[in-house]
């Protein structure tokens, strides 16, 4: 349970305050309701590149990082397909510095050509380091366009290709900023050793004069229902074969989302989970196996993946994974196993309350979803799930027509030294 208070400035900026005086630190977390799904198909990777440019100086402050470090603060940011999230932690005595910095870059950036040049290179190196120069690094560059045909989730946050990043212009940067980085499209959460009145006064002082601009209206294409199984097989320079099966599932705010989430927990959370027991431990069939939900706001993917051992061929590996999914469809699970995954959800929520930054990020994300209160109601939604709900969900999701299968075949047999 995270307590908080909320207020909204006249320009539309929504602010949440969570007081926690057991720490000497404060945290300022700002989420902008813009992600890779808001990009145009010929300029992908831009939301993320833009996140880098947010550190390249703002209209009145040439350097973002230095003044923050001078007061003992740290910051970072991340971009997903849905949102862009910026955060600062600093000694609470210096809270105002965070307001000064964040409000100036919400007001306007410096739009420095030099920063754009350098960050294009930095992001290109990030692209290579994470997605190209790694075995299996390009999984999501392949799996997304296989599973999504219309919705912008068909490209990864880093972008479809390096070229899109290399071709980004200053005009793109400005247009993106003035459309998406507006007060009404942002949610600020201030947590830690702060008081509500202090935050309210600082917010009024630093953010109130930022001009109001309309919150952009999102009109994304709806992904049509998948009607037939999809498949891509690649022969790549990877050491061992690998398989990924992605299924469409409900979006983050759909009542069925927690059911799908528990489904993935039953399959692969912890060393007592089904896939791990059946395919890695009880019988030597896979070296690793995993299932997880993407957690996207719009209709999601749930992915089942594994690396079969050398003596298991790919057709057999695929059958073995499907057998486990079929058991969930045909057999009602017992209460004890369901209780187990629920207990894990409950304890994880308690652990998430140890850090002010985690608390601030969770509140901000749920406020973007619609209401920060939902975070506090989340556990109850999980605890109410029944074995028959799990079975129904498995029957809806785990069918061939709803699947996109990506297979890597190792090109050559390699041996560890």
């Amino acid at each position, binding site marked *: 349970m995270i307590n908080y208070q909320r207020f909204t400035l006249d320009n539309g900026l929504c602010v949440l305050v969570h007081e926690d005086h057991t720490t000497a*630190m404060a945290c300022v977390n700002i989420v902008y309701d813009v992600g890779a799904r808001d990009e145009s198909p010929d300029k992908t990777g831009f939301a993320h590149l833009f996140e880098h440019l947010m550190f390249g100086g703002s209209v009145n402050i040439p350097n973002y990082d230095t003044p923050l470090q001078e007061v*003992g603060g740290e910051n970072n940011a991340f971009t997903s397909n849905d949102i862009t999230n910026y955060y600062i932690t600093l000694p609470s005595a210096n809270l105002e510095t965070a307001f000064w910095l964040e409000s100036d870059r919400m007001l306007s950036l410096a739009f420095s050509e030099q920063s754009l040049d350098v960050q294009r290179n930095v992001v290109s190196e990030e692209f290579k380091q994470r997605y190209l120069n790694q*075995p299996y690094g390009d999984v999501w560059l392949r799996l997304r366009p296989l599973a999504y045909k219309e919705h912008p989730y068909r490209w990864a946050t880093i972008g479809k290709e390096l070229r899109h990043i290399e071709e980004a212009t200053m005009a793109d940067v400005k247009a993106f900023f003035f459309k998406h980085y507006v007060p009404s499209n942002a949610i600020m959460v201030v947590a830690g050793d702060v008081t509500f009145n202090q935050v309210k006064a600082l917010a009024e002082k630093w953010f109130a004069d930022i001009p109001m601009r309309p919150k952009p209206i999102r009109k994304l294409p709806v992904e049509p229902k998948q009607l037939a199984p999809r498949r891509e097989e690649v022969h790549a320079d990877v050491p061992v074969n690998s398989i990924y099966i992605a299924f469409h599932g409900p979006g983050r705010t759909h009542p069925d989302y927690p059911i799908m989430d528990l489904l993935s927990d039953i399959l692969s959370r912890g*060393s007592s989970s089904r896939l791990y027991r059946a395919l890695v431990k009880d019988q030597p069939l896979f070296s690793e196996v995993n299932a997880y939900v993407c957690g996207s706001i719009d209709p999601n993917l749930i992915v089942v993946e594994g690396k079969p051992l050398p003596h298991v061929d790919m057709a057999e590996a695929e059958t073995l994974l499907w057998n486990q999914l079929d058991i969930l469809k045909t057999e009602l699970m017992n209460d004890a196993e369901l209780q187990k995954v629920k207990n894990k959800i409950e304890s994880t929520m308690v652990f998430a309350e140890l850090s002010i930054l985690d608390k601030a990020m969770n509140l901000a994300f749920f406020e973007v979803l619609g209401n920060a209160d939902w975070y506090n109601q989340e556990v109850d939604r999980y605890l109410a799930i029944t074995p028959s709900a799990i079975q129904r969900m498995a029957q809806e999701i785990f069918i061939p027509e709803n699947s996109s299968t990506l297979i890597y075949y190792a090109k050559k047999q390699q041996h560890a030294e």
Partner: protein
Amino acid sequence: MLNRVIAPLRHDIQDITLVQPDEVVFDNGLRVFVFNAPTQELVKAEFIFQNIFDGSENSLLHTCACHMLKEGTETRTSAQIAAEIDFYGAYLMPEYSFDQTALTLYSLNKHLSAVLPVVHDILNNAIFPEAELETYIRNNKQTLQISLQKNEYVARRLFFTTLFGESRYGRVPTKEAYDKLNKEDLVALYQKQIQPQNCTLILSGNITGDVLKQIRELFDVQWANTVRINNILTPEFPVFIPKTVIEERTDALQSAIRLGMPAINRIHPDFPAIQFVNTLLGGYFGSRLMRNIREDKGFTYSIGSAFASLQHTGFFTIAAEVDITNTHKTLAEIEKEFDILHNTQAPEEEVALVKNYILGSILGTIESIFSHADKFKAVYFYGLDLSYYTRYNEIIRNMTTADVQRIANTYFDYDNLLKIVVGRNN
């Protein structure tokens, strides 16, 4: 009218105030440190064992023994252990580090009495079943195959083997070494190492009288020492010879660069000052290496440096992944930064900034009672106590530009670094 050009007033950053643990020594020799804070209904129990080497320095055996602790006891199978721990929403994690083997339990208070007996069973009756060992070996060999295709992993591996040779710190996994693991060696190591006289238990969270009573019942009276610990080896390291090691990978897009050398560890009085200079050079986002090589040249997504402390030595390291065409240019820029560090006094403003940055980040490491336990752990095994942090902060607060140069000239020497490039030497 609001003046947005001028920064708000800066306030001094306070020092951390650390929680002093209560210490109890059980009759069996187990040392227990208690960090109590009843704010959350959580308990963390860390059973930490010194890694014991008495015949060889084959640390792969220790790694395996650590990760296989949960794989079966005389009365519980691996599956039963997993099911019991998972059912109660608890986490039980074996954690191996260069000098210690730890088994860490996280649990809600309300489930603690259900999961503690499982931990007790593991620490007394683990059997390392053959079938589980085969699985461990098979899966780790496959994981190794994948890792060996990552330039960054290969560079890190070359770094440790070159620096620490055949000692415990220099051993890296190989297919052959995995094949040599066997049950007898694991059981022998377990019997020597997993004993109360070789264990430190750190309890943090809501440690009530009832929690302590349960701990004492299980881990004092019902946990006996089995064998004497003799002939403990101290590691010997090869003579360090700085050299350049290139591993060509014709298909690489990026080169993994890793530089470094052996160094002093936390016990040395200069360690805090070295951390200061390292932070300035490559230890944070605003460091000279990041500003030059990422933020000015755009050669890399990330570059960083660190001084790490081990029980018997320490090491300095710099790591980055860069486009193959910028490999030489990056090395040249790193060398340039060392030259500047030696030849030009750091500006007062930069020294002031690094001071505040470090003081703020130390303050930020304290999030919950668990953080207090972490701070204690980081010094305890070096024979230091919490006054280390008072000294540390004092040294950081008093650093001058002259100190920076003195430390740089004593401990930072580009010509004396081991230089590893995995990728293309362009």
